[in-house]
């Protein structure tokens, strides 16, 4: 699971890349976004807040029905492998106190059908543990990301060959001109997916996904992503606030990119199991990254 790279799939922008009219297909738009995501997300260090709450409607507006649960995370990611399409990412929990220090290392693969690898370090276990997550199926919800409404399926990257895309129409979303692109999983992917159809609203100028709607096999919208606070960060357009609403459970999670830095000097060795267990090495590496961001 390449959490933060993938979340940027929902929100990160393209550079000033524009597709010519003859290239303007759903697949071309998505491929451009994917390529851009990789180029803008390589060697990144991110600090974010993940807030979750049940929600209701108060005076016509969506509102939390309880005090949100907040997790603060730090993440380091690099691209590697053939054509730099695979990813390695490390995520460390800073808050809440009860979960402080929990670390997760993920190797994600672009190749269709190739399972990602995940290792977890919990101090109670006293060792690094491989996690066999596998894929979900159309009946079961994929794994939640740190207890949020974002799931491993929402954050999976690459593997575009497992989908077909169709440009539906031009539209307006949050005052911006957008393309509506429909994404349909192929037969093999559909067996593993909770979503039978997804519609993305993509900012035509900044290549940011401003909204996504996920539908189940009965055609019912079950989840919706809303992105906002689109800002130019480190020369890339970025939606710094991404909210996933579960329309079935009435619970939402907001991911706030409090800090994000890209194109940092990150050693491959930092994205290994050593970083999970060797606290001195990990803290030294993180300090070095923080220093690079100053």
């Amino acid at each position, binding site marked *: 699971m390449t959490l933060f790279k993938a979340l940027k799939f929902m929100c990160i922008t393209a550079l000033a890349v524009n597709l010519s009219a003859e290239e303007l297909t759903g697949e071309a738009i998505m491929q451009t976004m994917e390529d851009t995501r990789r180029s803008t997300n390589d060697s990144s260090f991110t600090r974010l807040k993940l807030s979750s709450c049940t929600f209701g409607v108060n005076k016509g507006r969506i509102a939390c029905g309880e005090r949100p649960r907040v997790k603060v995370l730090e993440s380091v990611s690099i691209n590697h492998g053939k054509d730099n399409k695979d990813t390695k990412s490390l995520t460390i929990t800073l808050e809440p106190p009860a979960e402080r220090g929990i670390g997760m290392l993920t190797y994600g693969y672009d190749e269709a059908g190739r399972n990602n690898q995940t290792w977890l370090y919990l101090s109670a276990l006293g060792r690094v543990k491989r996690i066999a997550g596998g894929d979900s199926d159309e009946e079961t919800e994929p794994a939640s990301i740190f207890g949020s409404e974002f799931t491993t399926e929402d954050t999976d990257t690459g593997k575009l060959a497992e989908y077909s895309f169709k440009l539906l129409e031009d539209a307006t979303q949050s005052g911006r001109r957008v393309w509506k692109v429909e994404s349909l999983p192929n037969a093999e992917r559909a067996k593993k997916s909770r979503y039978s159809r997804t519609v993305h609203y993509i900012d035509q100028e900044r290549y940011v996904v401003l909204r996504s709607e996920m539908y189940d096999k009965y055609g019912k919208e079950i989840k919706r992503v809303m992105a906002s606070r689109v800002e130019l960060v480190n020369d890339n357009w970025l939606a710094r606030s991404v909210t996933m609403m579960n*329309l079935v459970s009435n619970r939402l999670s907001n991911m706030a990119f409090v800090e994000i830095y890209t194109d940092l000097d990150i050693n491959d060795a930092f994205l290994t199991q050593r970083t999970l267990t060797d606290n001195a090495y990990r803290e030294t590496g993180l300090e070095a990254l923080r220093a690079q961001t100053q």
Partner: protein
Amino acid sequence: MLKRLFLYPFAIALLVLATLVAGQGTKAEEPTGDPFGDELNFDDDLFGDAFDSPETTKEASWLDGFTVRLSQQLYWQVNNHSVEPRPGLRIPKQADLENNRLGLNFRYQNAFAPGWLLQFTGQARWYWKDDYEYQANNDSIATEYRINELYLQRSFDQQSLKFGRQTVVWGETVGNSVLDVINHTEFRDFTIIDIEDARLNQWMLVWDVFAADSQWSSFINLYPEFNPVAVPGSPFYANTGYNIGDYKRGSQTLFEAGTQWRKSFESSDISFMAAYLYENQLRYDYPVAGYGDALAKKNDFVLLGFSANRAIGKLLLNADLAVSLGVLPNESPFPGITVAGSGLDIEKDQLGASLGFEYAISSDQSISLGVQANKVLNESKGLTPQQTIVNEGIFGSWLVRYRNALSNGNLVISSTLQGDLAADSLFVSLGLDYSINDHWAVAGQIISTTANQQTPMVMFDADVRVGATVTYSF
């Protein structure tokens, strides 16, 4: 077993109460009609403070390294019954409050210089009225402090050195590995039933050498410790009429040492290991005079091991193999259970294997199974025709754990079943943990034990325990 659970309405009521508590939380009006139309009235000011107060504006303080957990725990043995350890000998057991204690656990971590780290974890316990420790302390509040971890780490290049109190965990099988024997353990009572919670730290020097996909890890322990003896009043305490104490090491120098090589492949990890160890559980001979201090005896041996895992979709297969050379054979399949005076001081070789799997039924539900089996290789060697070893043939234990996380992990239902391969005992636990918010959590648990006269666990036959814990973390 299940029938027994239903006999105790209090226990059920506790869990129902916890479930009701877990169901609370949504105070806002639920959406009606279609509030999710195209012009959804949503803005992220809900979480605006995430940006208004970025973490980096906080001034770093050494206090940031502290994590503290406070917990108040109550546990009852709720079944009025009797046990029959030997035919005709019935011992009554009354329903009783066993645990009433406040715990404080803290963790401190400070990477005070590049490549250096200090880690310190400890705990304090206050035993209130009716806790068995309170009763053992002449009916007055007892206090206990303990350093768990305290180590200094230096990492440089491809290496790491850690010196201090720490744990070393070997093996892959969840909770039931024949290789997870480096650190000693304390199963003081039934509130600690998982080995992950029972491990005690020891003073060790650990040296790790890292490569891209592999790791050498070696340790030396210059002060090996043994499983502590159950305190009077605890469920595991048995009044034998003589004193069961720690090993009297005198001027002897004891040490343990071992090394492990681990390598990761895609979808699999493997390890090889070798160590010189002492069995964590001491053996005891009857006092020479028939009373006074039982004679504690150490039990050193050489361990050779191999472990591997393999991920296949949602399934993770685990295997551990252990060869123990020159060991005095185990007397009880359950750690923490001491058998006095039944051992034969004849070293044997023993083969152990743990096989298990973990399966993710869904993203929220998982189940794991671990089976540990042991066989003494040269059972009759050195024995007279009238002698037998305690564990003939294949002996061991099995462990099943089930976990279901609801409400995105805020509510966790878990169950543990544990028994020995001879089917002489069965342990069933049902737990419910609910995180009220980022600081407060509550937990409830029901534990039932069944055993026959073939096992020391018979002392817990027909016991039913109910417990609740409230935790605050900051």
